[in-house]
């Protein structure tokens, strides 16, 4: 125990007192979200896979040396070897090329569907949110009815109707069918956020805070809104890809040879029956990987945005 001297009992100065204050660095929102996402190893795996698959989808068909439609009758149903990395199908087409070409379509469809859902959802939800209660109520009822129509059922029906006999469905129809009912959750989400914003602004006004504060709060509310929307978009993609794959599997997908992964899997089914398992494995595996990656990334995003899980 040190000796206590009289001078220790003199007043401490301002600086000495302020030095004690430990200041935690103020953390900006989005960089922090990214940091937390990085900590989630599974989500990072997903993200990496997505990037890899996208790259392969772009360059795969280019590096293989074959096209997706060339038919080579002397090389029918060849198992994977050094020439045909994924083997060939019943018409002698290189499956490596076809698989990655299919991946292009699957990814494209997923992203397009998500983008359209996003747009319709924001518009519909935004309008509902700022409208009068009556209009909002009616809009929500309509949305409810639309949503209760089974998504895949509609997709299948529309594909049936709009596909020409025998051949597949056009890209346009597929996307249309998929987005017709799927935008509702996004709309509901956006509407909820808009309503919150409305409330916040109202209470802001009544608290007579300066315009400065209002702007700052908007800086917090908008990021708050974008978060769940971003998560929703990320999780819409695998849903759309799954729907499209199901279509393909039922023979309603894109027209061959521009097949998507689902169609390829369907073709491969016949192959599997006669022992040519490889014909179905690659597309099936790829579909699963894509869905896995987006799901896991979406999960990670959701966790990273959740303020309660801040470390």
């Amino acid at each position, binding site marked *: 125990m040190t000796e206590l001297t009289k001078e220790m009992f003199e007043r401490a100065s301002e600086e000495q007192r302020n030095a004690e204050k430990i200041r935690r660095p103020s953390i900006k929102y989005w960089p922090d979200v990214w940091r937390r996402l990085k900590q989630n190893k*599974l989500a990072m795996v997903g993200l990496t896979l997505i990037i890899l698959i996208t790259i392969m989808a772009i360059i795969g068909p280019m590096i293989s040396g074959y096209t997706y439609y060339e038919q080579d009758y002397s090389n029918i149903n060849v198992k994977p070897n050094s020439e045909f990395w994924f083997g060939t199908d019943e018409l002698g087409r290189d499956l490596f090329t076809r698989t990655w070409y299919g991946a292009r379509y699957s990814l494209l469809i997923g992203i397009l569907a998500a983008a359209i859902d996003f747009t319709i959802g924001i518009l519909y939800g935004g309008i509902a949110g700022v409208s009068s209660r009556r209009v909002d109520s009616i809009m929500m*009822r309509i949305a*409810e*009815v639309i949503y*209760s*129509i*089974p*998504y*895949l*059922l*509609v997709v*299948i*029906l*529309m594909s*049936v*109707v709009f596909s020409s*006999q025998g051949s597949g469905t056009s890209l346009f129809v597929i996307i249309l069918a998929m987005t017709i009912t799927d935008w509702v959750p996004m709309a509901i989400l956006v509407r909820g956020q808009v309503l919150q914003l409305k409330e916040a602004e109202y209470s802001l006004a009544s608290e007579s805070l300066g315009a400065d504060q209002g702007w700052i709060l908007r800086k917090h509310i908008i990021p708050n809104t974008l978060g769940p929307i971003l998560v929703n978009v990320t999780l819409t993609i*695998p849903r759309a890809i*799954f729907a499209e*794959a*199901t279509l393909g*599997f*039922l*023979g*309603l997908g894109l027209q061959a040879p521009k097949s998507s992964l689902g169609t390829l*899997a369907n073709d491969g*089914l016949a192959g*599997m029956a006669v022992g040519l*398992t490889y014909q*179905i494995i690659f597309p*099936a595996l790829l*579909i*699963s*990987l894509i*869905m*896995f990656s987006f*799901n*896991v990334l979406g999960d990670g995003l959701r966790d990273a945005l959740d303020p309660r899980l801040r470390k």
Partner: protein
Amino acid sequence: MKKYLLKRFVMSIITLWAIVTITFFLMHAIPGNPFAKEGKMPPVVYENLQKKYGLDKPLYQQYLIYLGNLIRGDFGDSMKSRVETVNDMIERGFPVSARLGAQALVFALVFGPALGAMAALYQNKIPDYISMIVAIIGISVPSFVMGTFLIQFVAKNIGFFPIGGWGEFKHTILPSFALGLMPLATMARLMRSSMLEVLNQDYIKTAKSKGLTKFAVIMKHAVRNAILPVVSVLGITISNLLVGSFVIEKIFGIPGLGMFFVKSIGNRDYTLIMGTTVFYALILILMLLLVDITYMLVDPRIRLTEEGH
């Protein structure tokens, strides 16, 4: 409570009507005629066929006739099959599909929430990791992929499991598993996050402070509340299960309604397509209504408020 039920019932009818109408007009929007595939036929025969299926009448009349028939439970005659009506086919296929669907659902309901609850209770420990790996696989691997995988690697290698077909219980095991895995995974994940949230609630602390055993706290307080979100997605789950069954029936060669549906798509047998669609919609909406009622029974807060939210 009654007001809520009434509202849900009315919504259901409206939705059902919407589906029927959409289906009807979609079917009739298809260019060309449904008999084209039959090959060339004498005009008289063609006219008679038109008359038989009422295709010579104006569209809105056809629509009303169809609606009328539906209300009476008549789904019409199949355009392709000379022998059976759509009703017959539904009668044949439905019990099979129902069994498949029910088994898959029970499988998912029993194991899904249980897996999720366990994951939450042992958060970040081994049971959590295992459950979540199972769940991730379940939601990422589409049912048809799982189905083919099972056939290829399980059925072909283990003699006990038949590769396809229907008839005995063992025929139902692999298909039910393939069909039920995705809902199982979804429910497991949902249950896990729900439990984690509930376990942080104040009333769990209250329950502990009363001196209750851990088991009592978990079962009577945590699970009881955590299961609510799972029940609320039951509707969508069943909806997905329904469509998933098409695919599974195709892969395993199961003679259910789904198979008829898929075949009718290939054949362009419009009455059959419409019939099965409407029937499916009917079943689905019935299930959704049941789920709503269940949710109401389970969450006392809903029972007494007028709004459904």
